[in-house]
């Protein structure tokens, strides 16, 4: 994900409190992007699901979430761990969590970032409708 001046980056220990902060930040940015209540709700669920999936993937010490609103009203998200994980298979696309994330967002993808850290990316659907 390319950094720009609107990007918000949040870092915290890989723990439920951090996931809650991620949810709150995602919700706030979605609200500012004019998303519907349903859209905000599903965006927050996707963030929750992605962060939890990474947390359970191999006990990372910390999680990093980068959220980038675009002028078109979409919001890109990338959540990754603070370092490579030995247990990360790089492909969790058969998991329930992945089904949830991919149904609630668009352009969902999973892999590793340039530093080899497990990463989940997606873009919020502005309307909150599936499509």
């Amino acid at each position, binding site marked *: 994900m390319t950094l720009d001046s609107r990007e918000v980056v949040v870092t915290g220990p890989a723990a439920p409190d951090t996931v809650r902060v991620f*949810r709150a930040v995602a919700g706030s940015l979605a609200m500012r992007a004019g998303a519907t*209540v*349903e859209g905000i*709700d599903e965006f927050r669920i996707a963030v929750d699901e992605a962060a939890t999936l990474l947390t359970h993937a191999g006990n990372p010490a910390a999680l990093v979430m980068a959220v980038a609103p675009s002028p078109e009203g979409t919001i890109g998200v990338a959540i990754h761990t603070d370092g490579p994980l030995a247990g990360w298979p790089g492909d969790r696309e*058969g998991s*329930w*969590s992945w089904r*949830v994330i991919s*149904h609630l967002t668009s352009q969902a993808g999973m892999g590793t970032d340039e530093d080899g850290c497990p990463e989940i990316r997606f873009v919020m659907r502005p309307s909150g409708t599936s499509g």
Partner: protein
Amino acid sequence: MSSSQPRVPDGPEVLEWFRELPDPAARERLVHRFLPLAEHLAWRFAGRGESKEDLQQVASLGLVHAIDRYDPDRGVQFATFATVTIVGELKRHFRDRGWSVRVPRTLQEAAMAVNRATTELWQSLGRSPTVEEIADRAQLSQETVLEALEAVQSYTASSLEAPVGEDGVTAGELMGDVDPQLEISQEWLAVGPALRDLPQRERHILYLRFFKDMTQTEIAQEIGISQMHVSRLLTQTLAKLREAGDLDVLDAGSG
């Protein structure tokens, strides 16, 4: 609520029992006599997210308080006094215990206002409203609306078996038959036991959202509950599944 209060005449024996207090036998007779009134009032609060058993317990406690506090010399029928006391107890219960985590009173009130505004806007707009629209309608700041929406997720979801009407029909019964495809979906059958063990309504909502690609609004219309209620059930059910953590076998049997 007062217009439909049950008519339970006290009768001369009731006054007599009060005069015999604190005799445990008299107290027992009073409880036994007015328990149907307490149960009736509890029933009136059903379908709001609390189990019938909990409501009956709260109403029974209200009845005991009413017996303790009633003064026959004031000339008010005990049934009237008990109704007010029991309803007060039930309302207090909803105010204090309907939330699964401690939510400040002001935020609870904001959440109620947001809930009302969302429902009204949903009906008038025919779609899920934005936070700005809700803030305008509810006369709250957008930040408060957002905070309230998050807080709403902490409200205890209705049990599937909670009656939603005075005729005792449960939410589960209102859902209609389960889509036959639900039973034959290999993907669905392959998921972990935590998903299969969910109550019928929660399972049905997950199926409609993640296998039938229906939106929350469409699900709400199909099941006959509000979009916010669907949202709450989805959030709470997904959180439950994340805690269970045994759902990594989604496509194990789909090949």
